[in-house]
């Protein structure tokens, strides 16, 4: 009846044809990889802090937001993201040390509920501080001029150099994290503290020093992620919120306290979310949560957590 339209090649004329092509898929895969790696920077701090100290830090998304706004403030003052990046890392370490020393230290043994309350209050305070210092407007942060071009990959398809740089930077940080956690003495202590804190105490290791270091590193990673994300997503009020919830999803799927678990699950979430938004926009927001619920029902302590 309709020899032309029913042929297997009819898909060329379908409205999906333009999104089904290889270059588009490659671009979405790269976007997913970049998003996932950024999520890893946030989630690894979250999972370490939970694993070692048992703290549920709802304010972790606010730290990410602080990083993004720091990138905006520093780049508009100096004109360069290259200054904002080390400034964000350093600022993150200092902020983390202060928060641990003067606030979080007193909440390690408190109930989860008190921790939720404390860190929710911190979200409100960080948002107000942001509003006081920078205001409530949306701002965009320019991509550094040195990276403001596209790298051709195939004929007719090229990909932003800045996104490549973000992917590289995140991979480098992930590698450093891996070496630190898996190959150094301090890393071994941190893994031990996440596994059996009593044992670490008994061995005479100063837990307070470990807590300070872990919290500072986690905070610095969140701020770094914020700085890197600023040119990609622009900066806006409450931007930490979405990233916080999605990072929790990453942490839960990866298994609490497991940095390598967080790495793989961040990639998974990044790809699922990005591909979902590109190809099934109506249900994309739901996708990751459905995935998380499914994973938890199948494996109640996460995909990479200990088998229960």
């Amino acid at each position, binding site marked *: 009846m309709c020899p032309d339209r029913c042929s297997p090649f009819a898909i060329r004329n379908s409205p999906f044809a333009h999104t089904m092509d290889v270059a588009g898929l490659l671009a979405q895969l790269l976007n997913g990889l970049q998003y996932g790696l950024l999520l890893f920077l946030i989630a690894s701090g979250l999972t370490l802090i*939970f694993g070692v100290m048992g703290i*549920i830090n*709802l304010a972790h998304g606010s730290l990410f937001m602080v990083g993004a706004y720091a990138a905006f403030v520093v780049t508009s003052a100096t004109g360069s993201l290259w200054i904002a990046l080390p400034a964000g890392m350093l600022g993150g370490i200092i902020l983390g040390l202060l928060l641990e020393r003067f606030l979080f230290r*007193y909440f*390690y*043994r*408190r*109930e*989860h*509920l*008190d921790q*939720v*309350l*404390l860190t*929710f*209050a*911190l*979200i*409100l*305070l960080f*948002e*107000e501080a942001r*509003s*006081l210092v920078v205001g409530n407007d949306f701002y965009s942060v320019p991509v550094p001029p040195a990276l403001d071009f596209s790298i051709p990959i195939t004929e007719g398809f090229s990909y932003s150099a800045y996104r490549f740089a973000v992917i590289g930077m995140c991979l480098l940080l992930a590698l450093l994290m891996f070496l630190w956690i898996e190959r150094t003495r301090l890393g071994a202590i941190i893994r031990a503290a996440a596994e059996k804190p009593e044992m670490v105490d008994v061995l005479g290791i100063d837990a307070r020093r470990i807590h300070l270091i872990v919290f500072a590193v986690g905070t610095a990673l969140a701020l770094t992620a914020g700085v890197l994300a600023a040119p990609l997503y622009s900066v806006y009020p409450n931007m930490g919120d979405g990233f916080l*919830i999605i990072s*929790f*999803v990453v942490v*839960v799927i990866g298994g*609490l306290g497991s940095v390598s678990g967080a790495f793989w699950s961040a990639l998974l979430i990044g790809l699922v979310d990005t591909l979902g938004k590109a190809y099934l*926009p*109506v*249900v*994309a*927001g*739901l996708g990751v*949560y*459905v995935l*998380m*619920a499914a994973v*938890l*029902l199948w494996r*109640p*302590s996460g995909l990479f957590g200990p088998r229960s």
Partner: protein
Amino acid sequence: MLPESKLGWMGLALGAAVLAAVPLFVRPYYVELGTYALIAAMLALSLNLLVGCTGLVSLGHGAFYGLAAYTVYLITPEEHGLSLLVTLPVAVLAAGVAALVVGALSLRTRGFFFLMVTLAFGQMLFFLFHDTKIGGGADGAFLARPTLSLLGFELELTRRQRPVAIYYIGLVQMVAMYAGLALLLRSLFGRVLEGIRVNENRMQAIGYNTYRYKLAAFVIAGMLAGVAGHMWALHRGFVNPELVGWHRSAEALLMILFGGLNTLHGPILGALAFTGLGEVAQLLTERKLLVEGLVILFVVLLLPNGLSGMRLPGGWKRGLAATGRPPAERGAESLRHG
């Protein structure tokens, strides 16, 4: 959980009487604010059945609240509102069914994971209403409010009378909810829930199927949150995805902790105080969140048992704040480390 002295019950009766007298003395704006505080109190009360009584910390409770409000929106025809006697049961039923599904799945996990799964289900619902056109999308939608009709008679109210009537409907529902929960907690069912909070393994060892008890508590709490959500639709005549979002759930947790989770009146106290605090903060400064954040910080650092656990001089404390278990039980830990 319940007052143990006559003085305590008198305090409760006095509180209810004060709440009942409020619309007689204040401006209409404050009547509406009062209605909102009552809705918040009902949400906090319902959540406290999980958090305070059973020891289940859920971050997705706002989902059932929001779902009930959306249910009213979905079943109401555009031009004229349905009777309250239709919308309330349907909304509560919808919240209950959702709670049954969510609870059956999420109660397989514990502690932090339970917190996260409930959060995930809440966010699922949030994105369902946010991304699709089911309920007006991200902007929300107006609805014809439920009417106050009984057996064919419809109560006709002027614009001035309506908020007052709605306030009293809210108050009646909240008092009923308090009384119902008080009875429930006295029953064997309530005792089992308390046992689960204190030591679930031991309850299992005694022979209770704790999963079923927790699921029942989860469904009841979801339905009660549905009552609060329905009340929101009646009060504001507007729904948006914020109702379902996790901030609402976190706020309800705050109210419980603010008021003190060892008592049944604590969540009500917390909700009223929190709503009042927000209002005062807004009047005094433009920085509402700053004041709220600082007060929460103050409460969590210095009042581990919330407002109802505040230390009053000797006899007063025993009378007013008499609780089933000593405040020290929860405070001791924080004192040692704080």
